[in-house]
């Protein structure tokens, strides 16, 4: 006991001078990793889970298509819809979107465009296959079914 008493006289304050530095470090980490959403997603997005996920090699080659039940059922109804950029499109209008996205890329990269399909897991295959067929015709044949990593049990 006496031993501890001696120690208790020493200052017990934790030096907090470095605290701002630590916080700043965290802050910079989050500032760097943050991606601000460019577009508002108007459809429900609960992505399916899978194990065999590959990473995209080059992010500039990726264009996103969102499919799901609209969040605002009152206006758009309950049927799953396709969203590109900020608008809903019909499956056969996707060719235009593909061409627009291809125009953004350099000539050499155009054939390597990857379409990332963000599809809600409750969507039925009908609309998905319509989209696939249109993409096939518009020559954007690399697809990425976006999904989350499932945890093995």
């Amino acid at each position, binding site marked *: 006991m006496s031993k501890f008493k001696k120690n208790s006289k020493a200052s017990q304050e934790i030096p*907090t001078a470095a*605290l*701002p530095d630590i*916080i*700043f470090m*965290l*802050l910079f980490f*989050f*500032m760097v*990793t*943050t*991606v*601000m*959403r460019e577009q508002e997603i108007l459809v429900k997005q609960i992505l*399916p*889970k*899978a*194990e*065999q*996920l*590959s*990473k*995209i*090699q080059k*992010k500039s080659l*990726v264009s996103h298509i969102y499919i799901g039940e609209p969040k605002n059922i009152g206006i758009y109804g309950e049927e799953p819809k396709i969203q590109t950029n900020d608008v809903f499109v019909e499956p056969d209008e996707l060719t235009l979107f593909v061409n627009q996205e291809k125009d953004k890329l350099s000539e050499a990269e155009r054939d390597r465009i*990857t379409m*990332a*399909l963000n*599809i*809600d*897991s*409750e*969507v*039925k*295959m*009908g609309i*998905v*296959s319509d989209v*696939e*067929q249109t*993409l*096939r*015709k518009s*020559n954007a*044949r*690399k*697809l*990425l*079914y*976006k*999904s*989350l*990593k499932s945890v093995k049990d």
Partner: protein
Amino acid sequence: MARNKDRGTPEVNSGSMADIAFLLLIFFLVTTTIANDKGILMQLPPPPEEEIEIKLQERNIFKILANSNDQLLVENEPFGRPISELKEMVKDHILNFGKLSSTETIDLYNSLPGSLKSQVKQDPSSSDSPGDAIVSFKANRGTSYKLYIDVLDALHSAYNEIYAERIGITAEEFLQLDQSDDLQKRAYKQARAGIPKAISIAEPDK
């Protein structure tokens, strides 16, 4: 601390610096969505020009059908078991050497490591060789996307596990092989040589 004798110390009060930083930190924490750009990659076939009749041996094709009630029909039999068993069936189908006739298939068989050789079956009613094996999956328009991804995932994992085992790594490591690195690309090519990833996704029924 440098001591200033003549003047009062012109210090900025930095006590609240941490608070300000905290505030910013919390803002970024809340707004952050860590981008996940991961998924199952797939290549669509070129647009149809003419229907080309390709003669394939029935036994080389592993058929999976899904109906609008999310029920599976695997090799003409209803399949009510977990998807993980489907993966094993697909692996058996790919690794089957029904005909050990041509030199190519014999070379392929000899190139397999021992752990894969032990899984090889010689069922004449199944596929001729890994090079000939095809897995076909056909969904219905009413099939849920979730089931579609589950099956696709199982098919990919069957192939990836074989590829990975061939070069002695785990399937996880195989997926993380970097194509831009020469050494890793060679390993990737070596793993896939002779065993094409023949997954055929048919257009769904109306």
